[in-house]
């Protein structure tokens, strides 16, 4: 699972923005060229693909356009998505290149309003541009300083920047206004865990779990996993898997939770396409080595996930190895990831 989108090939987004400008000014050929350049640098930039599709469609090249629309949708659907226990903005897929550009246009025309700023900030934050997102949220807060919802987003940006103490202060203020705000409890838990305040972090997540309706099994499972409450996680991931049988993460996490609670192992069905996180399932099934897994963990998020699973598999036979993997994870992993919290809780259980 992703904390933020990770593709940042240089120049692609600039070409995309140039394409949008040309598109708006009626320079269709120029826009198409810019989108082509963007896609040459970043073939997965679905925003450019769909913009190109709309231009082709408008030119009457309907069949070519149709294929491009479908390609864009496929690219979006293949993008990683955030954990369902987190704030709404982390739970969606996309590069948000269009949104960053579009809301920038809106905020320069519809001035002194909140929505353009916060939508712009959200798009930036999910793209990993926390500093710019913080600026957008602060602009929004200048318009409506008394809105806890905006302060909560500022807290998220601060947390993404590693300014955890400030983030916690912001979340404290939000929670004093909205004590049952589960998304902010989750966010404060992440910031507290990043500072090593395990008991307080787990307290926030326990409260969030209490607040989450039973129907939101995936969110419940994830927040239980963060706390290291593997029995609850095992149960809820089972429910999630029943709703979304194709979700490989639910399969993996259920397997993980089951292993850590000592539940009898189910047969492991490894997806045929072997796309991430299938290598982690293969590792659980004994069909891949540590080196295989780490070789395929080609992003920071994947590396964090891999280190966690290496520790899980090692734990029963070799707790020292598990500890080594998890300590490495905690050194470099993003605190927003489920694995980060789970690893810290496991390390605490192993003792110093």
């Amino acid at each position, binding site marked *: 699972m992703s904390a933020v989108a990770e593709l940042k090939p240089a120049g692609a987004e600039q070409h995309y923005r140039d394409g949008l400008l040309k598109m708006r000014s009626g320079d269709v050929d120029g826009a198409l060229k810019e989108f082509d350049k963007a896609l040459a640098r970043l073939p997965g930039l679905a925003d450019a693909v769909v913009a190109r599709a709309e231009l082709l469609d408008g030119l009457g090249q309907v069949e070519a356009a149709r294929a491009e*629309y479908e390609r864009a*949708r496929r690219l979006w659907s293949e993008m990683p998505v955030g954990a369902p226990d987190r704030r709404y903005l982390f739970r969606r897929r996309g590069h948000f290149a269009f949104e960053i550009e579009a809301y920038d246009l809106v905020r320069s025309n519809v001035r002194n309003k909140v*929505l353009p700023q916060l*939508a712009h900030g959200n798009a930036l934050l*999910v793209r990993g541009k926390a500093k710019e997102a913080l600026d957008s949220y602060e602009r929004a807060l200048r*318009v409506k300083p008394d809105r806890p919802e905006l302060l909560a987003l500022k807290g998220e940006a601060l947390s993404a920047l590693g300014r955890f103490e400030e983030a916690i202060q912001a979340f404290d203020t939000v929670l004093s206004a909205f004590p049952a705000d589960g998304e902010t409890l989750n966010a404060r838990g992440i910031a507290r865990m990043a500072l090593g305040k395990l008991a307080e972090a787990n307290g926030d997540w326990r409260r969030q779990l209490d607040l989450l309706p039973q129907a939101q099994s995936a969110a419940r499972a994830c927040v239980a996993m963060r706390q290291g409450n593997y029995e609850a996680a095992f149960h809820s991931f089972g429910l999630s898997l029943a709703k979304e049988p194709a979700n490989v993460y639910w399969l993996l996490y259920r397997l993980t939770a089951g292993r850590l609670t000592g539940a009898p192992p189910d047969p492991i069905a490894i997806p045929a396409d072997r796309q991430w996180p299938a290598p982690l399932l293969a590792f659980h099934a004994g069909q891949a080595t540590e080196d295989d897994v780490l070789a395929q963990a080609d992003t920071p998020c994947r590396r964090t996930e891999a280190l966690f699973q290496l520790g899980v598999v090692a734990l029963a036979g070799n707790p020292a190895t598990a500890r080594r993997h998890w300590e490495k994870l905690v050194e470099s992993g993003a605190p927003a990831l489920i694995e980060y919290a789970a690893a810290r809780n496991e390390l605490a259980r192993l003792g110093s």
Partner: protein
Amino acid sequence: MFSVILYGRNDSHGYNLHKRAAISFNALAEVMSDPDDEILFVDYNTPDDHPTFPEAIHDTLTDKAKQVMRILRVRPDQHAHLRPKTHLVALEAQSRNVALRRSNPRNRWILYTNTDMLLVPRNEQESLSDILGGLADGFYQVPRFEIPEMLWEAAFDRRDPAGNLAKLRDWAVRFHLNQVVHNYMPMKYDALGDFQAALREDMFAIHGFDESMILGWHCDSNLAARLALYRGRVDTLIDKVFGYHCDHTRVAAANNKGRATRMNDQDKFIWNVVSPYVPAQAEAWGWPEVEIEELRLDRDTAYQRFTAGLAKTIQPATVPFITTSLEWQLYEDLTYDLAHTLPFVCDQVVTFPRSTAIMIVASRADFVSGFAEAWKGMGFTGPLLVPLECEGLPSDLEGVERAPFAQQLAKADMFIFEFGLATQTVSEPVRAGRAMAPIDKKRLKVIERLFKRAVATEAETRPPARRVARRFIGVNVIYNKFWTVFTDYVGANINPFCSQVLAGLPREDDSMKGKVLRFRGRHAL
């Protein structure tokens, strides 16, 4: 696969509403192919004595449209708590949320549109169900294209949706209809509310439409803002489906007063939205605790209920016609033909909730027993309240409750006052100059007294939960001595004598005459 959510009421919202709506209902049904698909029409605040809007135009709907449509009827009494806060008679957010709450949980998608839209899949082989079934999770909109009023009015056959969609494919090219009007994000397009497809799960997560938006307009933009935040993107379905709107600005609709139009605050509900959620209504949106009547057009229709009710109580006529007269010398003659009158009485009640408790104050025993049979046959479950003060009436009928008038007054949702002659026999001629017997006079005096008391004290004797005035039906009150009595107190229309029946709500007459009448009625003077 999807639930289409529409709303409206049985009125005349904009130019040639009936044709627009029929075209739209039929066209929407035409592009459905999944057995779970449904059109949810929330009929909001249609007067109780009217049928819902789809019932009023059912004959112009295709069988398929009737099969997939569920009508959710929000009664005026259910809207009454909002009436002081808005100038509108139909509320979009409340309507759409009532439908969302009650939508088919098996459907993954909710499609918000309006009763003047036709959705045309670009691939003729695909249904909208196919299209939505193949989509990834998200929030989708399409641009709206306009159809000139002349075209849809003159050329569409409302019962030929396939033909209409074919015409649109042709006109789109011939008349250059397809113009995409872009808009700022998060709206993406102009007139976005005519196609907003969202996951049902997402709509529940964000607490539906914002029900504080009760002044009209911008509900769609607010939804777009909140779903754009929630989902991050607003995706287009322009490659899959075109949406066409039957333009109807030739005559302004009630909510369109040009630059003087009152509307929801754009800043508050669009540009200063701070969250996808509306936590203040998290538990209450869509009125989950309110019992909302559901009606169908393919079964258990009002006509079927009406005929079933009357079949229980009257036999077909055995003569070509019967006669009566409204000549003035017959003013005192209160005879009337029961078999002819009962259908008009049933007509007055059939659109009311089945749980309605109705008070019957009558002189003729055969009226009470006949109506009681029809009431039951029409599927009503509420009691018939017959005051003990009315003598000579049957007490052993199913559903009839006898008790003192004062006790029953606060239980009644509606009233029937029947001014006939207790002594009239089935075989005697009607309005032939018949004089009243002493017992008739005695019983009519009681009825008149109870009528005046009921109507003069209506507001203060309403059932506790009820917020709107109760309806009074007068039987045999046209062109006879009780005509003025009834219409002094009840704001009834002028009806043909032949119908025998008048009905309306208590008059709100603040003139000296009105005050005197109310005083006299209250004290039964």
